[in-house]
């Protein structure tokens, strides 16, 4: 069938291929084009004249440069922390837990997915409230100040939000890992730690990459969590948000930054076979 795609297959594909080309990328192309337009400062209307000014503004103003770095830093931290938590947790679920408790653990990991995004973020706002929050009350007896609102709170909250999207692919990858590879490593004299480092981690790389695509992209676009628990911190999403009504072309140019970064990154990840695992 893979050799002789017949008419039925082609007909079936007409709708999605149209969607893919016309809408899916059309929408992104529209954005790219808008970024090259400008806004009439009196009428506040978009003027359809080609200009590179938006990009020049973005890259020349150090505030935007810092926002970009901050956003990438947050997305990277969230992804790394998710990996660090998801790896042993998935390992426990897939390889150590009994079949019965495994199913319960999976259900537990998935349950918070259904709670409203806002509710979860506000829960964390409550945790991080300076002076009166849960964290402050817990840390005061230890003589430590609560970190309060800020980038730390943003990273913790986003990690909480996107963790299941990292656990699921890694768990699936671990389930498919042949037992004999673990036996072989142990047979050759490797300790558990060495086996995890030399055998399990490298084989899970595609699954980790797949999970990273999810957590990184979800963190990158966020501007609400940072508003609620980020204190005065700003991320690229906020810059886009603030400029949308006033200067759409400039907002579009800001929004293009992560796309450009990611096209490069994805090309690298794709080579490592991330997509076979998710």
């Amino acid at each position, binding site marked *: 069938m893979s050799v002789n795609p017949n008419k039925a297959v082609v007909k079936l594909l007409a709708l999605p291929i149209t969607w893919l080309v016309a809408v899916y990328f059309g929408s992104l192309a529209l954005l790219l084009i808008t970024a090259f337009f400008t806004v009439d400062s009196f009428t506040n209307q978009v003027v359809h004249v080609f200009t590179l000014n938006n990009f020049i503004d973005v890259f020349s103003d150090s505030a935007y440069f810092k926002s970009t770095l901050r956003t990438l830093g947050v997305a990277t931290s969230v992804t790394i922390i998710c990996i660090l938590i998801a790896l042993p947790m998935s390992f426990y679920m897939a390889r150590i837990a009994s079949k019965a408790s495994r199913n319960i653990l999976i259900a537990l990991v998935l349950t918070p997915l259904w709670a409203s995004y806002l509710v979860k973020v506000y829960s964390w706002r409550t945790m991080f409230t300076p002076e009166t929050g849960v964290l402050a009350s817990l840390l005061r007896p230890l003589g430590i100040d609560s970190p309060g609102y800020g980038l730390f709170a943003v990273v913790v909250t986003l990690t909480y939000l996107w963790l299941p999207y990292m656990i699921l692919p890694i768990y699936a990858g671990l389930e498919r890992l042949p037992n*004999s*590879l673990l036996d*072989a490593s*142990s*047979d050759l*004299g490797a300790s558990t730690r060495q086996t995890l480092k*030399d055998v399990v981690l490298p*084989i899970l790389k595609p699954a980790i990459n797949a999970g990273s695509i999810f957590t990184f992209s979800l963190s990158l676009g966020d501007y609400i969590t940072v508003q609620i628990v980020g204190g005065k911190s700003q991320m690229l999403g906020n810059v886009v948000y603030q400029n949308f009504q006033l200067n759409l072309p400039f907002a579009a140019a800001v929004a293009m930054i992560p796309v450009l970064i990611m096209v490069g990154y994805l090309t690298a990840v794709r080579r490592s076979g991330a997509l076979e695992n998710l």
Partner: protein
Amino acid sequence: MPTSAIELRGLAKSFGDVIAVNNIHLDVYDGEFLTLLGPSGSGKTTVLRMIAGFEPPTGGTIKLDGVDVTKTPANKRDVNTVFQDYALFPHMSVQENVEYGLRVKGVDKESRVKQARDALEGVALAELGSRKPSQLSGGQRQRVALARALVNKPKVLLLDEPLGALDLKLRQQMQSELKQIQRDVGITFVFVTHDQEEALVMSDRIAVFNEGKIEQIDTAANIYEHPKTSFVAGFVGSSNMFSSEVAGKLFGIAKSFSLRPEKISIDSSGSAERSISGLVSDVEYLGPMTRYVVDVQGIQIIVLEQNENDRFSDVSSRKGSSVKLSWRFDSEQLLENFSG
């Protein structure tokens, strides 16, 4: 009395209610090629995995070189394993796979590169060190798995049906190679297989497993020529088995025995100690041999005869004809335990 590389005493393993290995006593001698032979589910692989340290026994002890290792983890035991699916690390090159055991033991880079190269040369794969396992054929993977185990110079090498995934021709070639390597390195081999032909060709001794127990342990020739039970006679090669009733009816003797098909002559002119007539009901041409099914008073007797000349037209014409079967008394092997 040779010294023992492995001593198993009262070894047992249960999975829940299922008894996989039932009170096994076994000495593996230094430098021998011992095969654990049996059908799937007979416990042979579980015994191997307990020796390797992958499964903790539920009873009994395991000694390696006189030292009790029953509670020693797998990575501290001086044995190495060749796995049925080879278990090569897919993300490492062939060279890195072979180096891995040395690396975790802290052997320095230069020395382990050299040792791994030598090991790969020993299995005639020196030039493929930079390939990934996925770029190798089945036979090549098998050899890499062997080199990866042997480079550690283990006291004992454990092989878990390592040839099961190979083509017939390749399997026969690897059988001779394995046997040759074992002679060259002088390491004790414990080999698990369900293939009795393989076991006969390769082994110094064979332990025949059935339902978690060792049914018989002896040299390959003795296992084949002198099976003690009907299970061994039937599992190792094919046999004509006569219960004491049948033997009484046909030959007037009240003992159960097995008789190998190739020990029976058809229409032999020479003197024979036992003979009986029957009707050829089927003739099957096997290439080097021909297999006859002869009906003797309602009992089917299988006879194998070498095709010494191009007699195919002769032998097929025998179908339906009456023949005289004959054999020597010492070809009859008395069975201690007859079932089925």
